[in-house]
């Protein structure tokens, strides 16, 4: 038993004990805080720093592509877009359904997005947005904005999208950009060390990155791409961006603008002039070699490819009988027909096999071996010298001339003009065509060259294949009297095969004869394109040469009955109409080649087209000084300096 006093004392003692115990506990807490906040603070401060700063890849803005006067051909457009931030969308299926209630969202697209969301969650905890719909119409964008607050985890924003303001006009020249595929990455990273390749792959995984898939976009990829930077992002615990710390040091470097030599107005006018016809036209500045227009029609709209074209839409383009994907101007190979006759005449004069005054009598046919070759004109042209042979496009004259000159000489001269060479000029899909000779035939067909084939060669038929670009190049070199010359499409940008000069001078005197012949075609009585000679500018005339490329062989029976024309035969069996020309005749500035597929007659369809395009070029002064600076004019062979 304890005394009363001892109970009181015991209580006091126990109070002191309890308070003391509390003091010990308090001291323990303070000691722990001291450890955390004083002794180990650096460790935790570093952890905090690491915690919240994230370097996010900032894609560079792609350089624009501009025409010679600075008009944008490929630039950027602000486009409305909806994306899902997987981290914030707890129920992606529900969110997608809510979006689909506002805008059109096909089921297969929903499936694809759902997969991407899963992947995004795995890769980065889902704070990188997944794009649901790009290119919203104004109405859709407005509607999405109104409903954005009610739909959890979505972002409605304006983003920059590659855009081709000229649409189809320059599809084959510019090409297009697309999300980089595995193939693209493999191609782009060729020759890179592994680190570089990995960085490149990371960059292209960014939803805003595109790579040039075709044309100039592909050729000038590195010029246009720029250098990626980083955005210093402060993120919260969920990876959500709280703020951005601006840092010039890390800013991406925008890609450089690329200038092409094209005059987009001339291009547009030419395409309009083609209307429903399919074909190609190339306009060159004969002084500089600048490609002022390069038409291939019909074409596709590169804008459709930027965000990925649907399988159905692509199939439609691919299977279209008019082949809109086909780059006719630099990749279309046609028999040049009579437009090739200047090359044959030049070869004849260069080799000395024929003199300009040598005459050939044309009865409408030509016997050689046991076969008969026909002139396009039944009944013949009578006695022809070189000038008249060109002017009337007399086939018999050129059978004889070609036979005398021989295949090797003609082929050599053709190559000097630039035939047989694939001029990419920075585009994709360029083809060289074919300049046949005995060696080629032996190698490829295992047969010797028959002299009869030389006759076909003489009128631009047979195995010979050329592109409209090559024809324009030929015409330009005739017009500038043989000065050395390379066509050029890149005005300011990376070096292409169009830079510099062609080391193949042609004889000026011979070229003057060719010009005279071409002048005869359009400006002298009896010329095959007499009606198209006047440019309609009250004076200036053009000089040209018609051509017809056979699509099929004319049978004996047909020839006897009279060759059927026009509506009588299927469109795709009709001949291609060709025309090459330069203008003005007294002071040549522009050279043009026109191919109208299945257009039947060079003089009836191709020549008026060429005339109208040249008319526009002269009126618009398409070759006037380009904005990207002085273009080196052509200099004699060998002295050329790349620009």
């Amino acid at each position, binding site marked *: 038993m304890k005394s009363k006093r001892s109970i009181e004392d015991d209580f006091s003692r126990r109070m002191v004990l309890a308070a003391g115990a509390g003091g010990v506990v*308090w001291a323990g807490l303070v000691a722990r805080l001291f450890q*955390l906040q004083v002794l180990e603070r650096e460790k935790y401060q570093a952890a905090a720093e690491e915690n919240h700063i994230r370097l996010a890849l900032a894609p560079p803005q792609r350089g624009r592509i501009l025409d010679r006067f600075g008009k944008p051909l490929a630039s950027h457009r602000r486009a409305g877009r909806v994306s899902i931030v997987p981290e914030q969308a707890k129920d992606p299926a529900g969110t997608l359904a809510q979006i689909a209630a506002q805008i059109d969202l096909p089921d297969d697209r929903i499936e694809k997005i759902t997969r991407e969301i899963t992947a995004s969650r795995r890769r980065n905890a889902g704070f990188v947005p997944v794009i649901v719909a790009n290119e919203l119409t104004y109405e859709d964008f407005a509607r999405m904005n109104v409903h954005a607050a009610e739909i959890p985890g979505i972002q409605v924003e304006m983003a920059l999208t590659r855009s081709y303001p000229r649409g189809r006009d320059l599809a084959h020249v510019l090409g297009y950009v697309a999300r980089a595929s595995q193939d693209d990455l493999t191609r782009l990273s060729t020759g890179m060390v592994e680190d570089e390749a990995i960085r490149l792959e990371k960059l292209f995984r960014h939803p805003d990155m595109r790579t040039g898939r075709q044309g100039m976009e592909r050729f000038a990829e590195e010029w246009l791409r720029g250098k990626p930077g980083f955005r210093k992002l402060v993120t919260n*615990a969920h990876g959500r961006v709280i703020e951005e710390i601006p840092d010039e040091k890390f800013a991406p470097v925008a890609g450089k603008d690329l200038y092409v030599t094209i005059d987009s107005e001339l291009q547009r006018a030419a395409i309009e002039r083609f209307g429903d016809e399919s074909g190609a036209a190339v306009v060159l500045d004969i002084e500089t070699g600048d490609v002022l227009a390069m038409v291939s029609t019909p074409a596709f709209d590169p804008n459709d490819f930027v965000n990925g074209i649907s399988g159905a839409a692509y199939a439609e383009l691919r299977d279209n009988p008019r082949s809109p994907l086909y780059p006719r101007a630099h990749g279309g190979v046609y028999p040049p027909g009579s437009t090739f006759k200047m090359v044959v005449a030049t070869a004849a004069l260069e080799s000395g096999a024929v003199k300009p005054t040598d005459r050939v009598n044309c009865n409408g046919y030509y016997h050689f071996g046991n076969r008969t070759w026909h002139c396009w004109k039944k009944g013949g042209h009578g006695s022809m010298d070189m000038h008249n042979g060109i002017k009337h496009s007399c086939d018999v004259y050129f059978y004889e001339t070609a036979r005398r000159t021989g295949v090797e000489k003609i082929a050599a001269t053709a190559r000097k003009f630039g035939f047989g060479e694939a001029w990419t000029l920075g585009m994709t899909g360029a083809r060289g065509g074919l300049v046949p000779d005995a060696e080629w035939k032996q190698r490829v067909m295992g047969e010797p060259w028959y002299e009869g084939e030389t006759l076909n060669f003489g009128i631009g038929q047979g195995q010979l294949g050329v592109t409209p670009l090559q024809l324009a190049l030929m015409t330009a070199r005739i017009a500038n009297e043989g000065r050395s010359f390379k066509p050029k499409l890149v005005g300011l940008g990376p070096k292409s095969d169009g830079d510099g000069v062609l080391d193949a001078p042609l004889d000026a005197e011979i070229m003057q004869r060719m010009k005279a012949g071409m002048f005869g075609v359009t400006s002298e009585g009896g010329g095959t394109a007499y009606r198209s000679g006047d440019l309609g500018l009250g004076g200036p005339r053009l000089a040209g040469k018609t051509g017809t490329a056979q699509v099929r062989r004319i049978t004996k029976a047909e020839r006897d009955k009279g060759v059927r024309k026009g509506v009588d035969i299927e469109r795709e069996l009709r001949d291609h109409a060709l025309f090459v020309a330069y203008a003005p005749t007294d002071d040549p500035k522009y050279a043009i080649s026109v191919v109208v597929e299945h257009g039947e007659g060079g003089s009836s369809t191709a020549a008026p087209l060429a005339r109208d395009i040249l008319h526009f070029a002269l009126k618009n002064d398409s070759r006037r000084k380009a904005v990207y600076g002085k273009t080196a004019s052509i200099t004699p062979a060998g002295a050329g300096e790349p620009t």
Partner: protein
Amino acid sequence: MSRDGYTGFSRGEARTRTARTLSFENVGALGKLAKLPWGFVLLIVAMALTGVAMLYSSAHTNPDESNLWYLQLTRFGMSFVLMLVLALLPLSLWRTLAIPAYAFTIVLLILVEVMGVSGGGAQRWLQIGPVAVQPSEFAKLATTMALAWYYDRVITPTSGRILIHIGALVIMLIPAALIFKQPDFGTTLALVASGGVVIFLAGLSLRVILFGVIAGIAAVPGIYFVLADYQRERVDTFLAQMSGESTNALGESYQIEQGLIAIGGGGFNGKGWLQGIQSQQDYVPEQHTDFILTVIGEEFGFLGTTTLLLGFAVILGWAFYSASQSQSWFGRLASAGAAATVAFYIVFNVGMVIGLLPVVGMPLPLISYGGTAMLTTMACFGLILSAHMHRDEKLSSTGLI
């Protein structure tokens, strides 16, 4: 029961104090209010305002939570008035209310069991009209009052028998069992701990206490198996953390880790108000409630956290001192028990946040956002103040009951 025989009360000093107190009673409530220990009261106000400022810092960036500081301020204002009212209540009334309050709390706890609202893996909320209350919070104070009432009745100058403590144990274990069942391990522990302090102060033999502690430790593995999954996970996390094992960064240990980074990152001086990186960017889950210390730690550094602990130490130390001055067993034990209740809140909360204890889900008194805890804390202070105001009363039970 009469206290007349108490030798301690016969000191001359005590008699004068009694006389003084009595004279003030005549002056009425206002005079009594003036007699409050205002240093203590103002310290509480200062602490609470600090809490509001920290709450603002922690939540202002989140639009959904940007007005929490204001809500908390309002709640504190109301609780403060309540504290003053409670402080003025005669201690005898407190004693009278002890058993009804205790009974009412037990009823509420049973109601929670029957029709409570679940939240966070446990059923501990009771929806009363628009407000959700957590009866387990009130249970701490009610149990303390009940224990004080009980000892006030049974302690005699000659008592010292172990048997009287059995009744106290029963009073404590009924609510403890109900709360444990919710399950709310942290509150159970806090309740048993502060109840234990009362029993200890009431004179339970040290040998028995020692035996109890050993038995408790032995029971730990058993307790582990009756815990709910999420509780076991917390203990696992804690043990893993103690042993240096790395655990799932997105689970419980993530919260602790981020909290430690915030506190440690604050360094000695802290980053300044509203400047905490972790705090401003939502890195620490529950940083406006249980983990508010991380905000203080990050933004005010070691200076801030120790000043805070010092503030609490002064409040609790004074409360303890005041309890020891009380002339009635009810006053002594209720006041010390209330102080112990607040003290265990603090120890559990701080210990948990700085990684010394498992995560038990305990708010930091006066600082953390939350209405029920604020109410309980302020009621505890009200009780302490009332005991202080009436420290010289001997509370003759015969006259009052």
